[in-house]
């Protein structure tokens, strides 16, 4: 199945990935190959089959009481942040 350059640009935008002009045709080619490859799945008989999200048959999401269990470690966690000020993560202006 062949993807167009436009398809790949749209996907890259959705995935928030910057792809350069030189790289774009390489991705168009490899992604097209991948989608041709997975086309084999169309041959499968899946009419009455339930989709399977994970292998744990019968397991349901465990719930717990809404109580704070952890200590406040934000200073430690924020040591990895690119830019922090007053315990806030700094990003470029969002609201115009």
């Amino acid at each position: 199945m062949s993807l167009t350059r436009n398809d790949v640009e749209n996907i890259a935008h959705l995935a928030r990935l910057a792809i350069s002009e030189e790289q774009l045709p390489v991705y168009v080619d490899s992604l097209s190959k991948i989608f041709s490859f997975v086309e084999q799945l169309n041959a499968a008989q899946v009419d009455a089959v339930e989709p399977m999200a994970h292998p744990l048959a019968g397991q349901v999401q465990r719930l717990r009481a809404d109580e704070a269990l952890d200590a406040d470690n934000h200073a430690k966690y924020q040591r990895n942040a690119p830019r922090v000020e007053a315990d806030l993560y700094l990003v470029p202006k969002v609201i115009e």
Partner: protein
Amino acid sequence: MTELHHLTLAQLNEGLRARRFSSVELTRHFLARIERLNPALNALITVTGEQALAAAQRADALLASGEAGALAGLPLVHKDIFCTDGVLTTCGSRMLSNFVAPYDATVVERLSQSGVVMLGKANMDEFAMGSSNETSFYGAVKNPWDLKKVPGGSSGGSAAAVAARLAPVATATDTGGSIRQPAALTGLTGLKPTYGRVSRYGMIAFASSLDQAGTLTYTAKDAALVLREMAGFDPRDSTSVDAPVPDYVAELDQPVRGLKIGLLKEFFEQGLEEQTAKLIREALQVYERLGAKLIEVSLPNLPLSVPTYYVVAPAECSSNLSRFDGVRFGHRCEQPKDLLDLYKRSRGEGFGDEVKRRIMTGTYVLSAGYYDAYYLRAQKVRRLITDDFARAFGEVDVLIGPTSPTPAFDIGAKVDDPITMYLNDIYTIGANLAGLPALSIPCGTVGGLPVGLQIIGPHFAEGKLLNVAHGYQNETLWHRDMPKGYE
């Protein structure tokens, strides 16, 4: 002359407790080997020498006082996918090349509590995506059996480190074969437990319904020793199964007589290299001599496992990797113009090609208009494959076949076409889709390169798998082979 690095983990454990050597001696021995031999292999990204010696000293004290944990004083390396508190955790990616983990993964915590000495963090395919350890930001890992060949992936660094005797055990992860395939290519015992058996807390997520932590060791007995400490319910992982952990070591010596071994018809079809097929058949003869019965079974949907995986895994990875956005941790681009630019360039620069390829594949199959045709359909085929396995386990106890279609291939040989690389996983992926435990053990060499025998079992049959592997290792010597230059 038996060197310390010739001993199995079990033998080292025994030696430490008998005080034939100390953990500090052992640690120094392996750190010296790492310093001398790792540069040519590129197996480790970080070496934690000082920490290791401090941990070794603590272990020696505990061994002397009789308060030591089950694995006290034993050196190991962790795949760089496990968060290690205060230690660089890169996941083989530029995106995390500055990330010092602020906590320990459950796997790390449990093994640390049982007394292991961490020597360092092992190189890996970036974000665990790969079958050759060629996608790492830190460069390709070399196979100690032949430095021009790949060690397999994504746990290539873990495998190369253990095969080269830089450490007697390494933790690793397996999403589509990433423990078993490198084990096969480097002559090791690689175990992927049942999905949910080992906690994924602190293990950087690639595909959440497929990822599982396991080990690379020289023997099934060694794997049993370590799994006993790693496995078990963890409330911090919502996919962790609350089931008791058996004593895997105690189950090792059950006789193999009467075992029903399923031979997967689909595994022995085209694509399997001839000499490899011969070694697999010879290994099966060993089992027959031990009194096992070989029964042919068919899993008709199994040939669809690779395309199924390459829809499901990228879909899950596109979701999991959306957290890498340059905001709270990880790589951030210089001078972002606006938020969109921050996201796009941080991620564009931080991720390598294969990761970007898989994120885009996943984004596409989950997008409006394509979700039903691709993702939902793949999840249905996943159920068909899982049901095929369940039916087979109604007739047999375990399935045995090859792990990899060929022995180790040349570095650079398969990087141009993603599909050629993906097909390396043809025998391993099924077990991940169905959540089944599986392992690979060495069963011979072709042209001097190791070949792996894969054993797959029903859910929570790790004990049986290790027992079956141990039976073979009692009769053969392949697991004792060492690559030239690393003895």
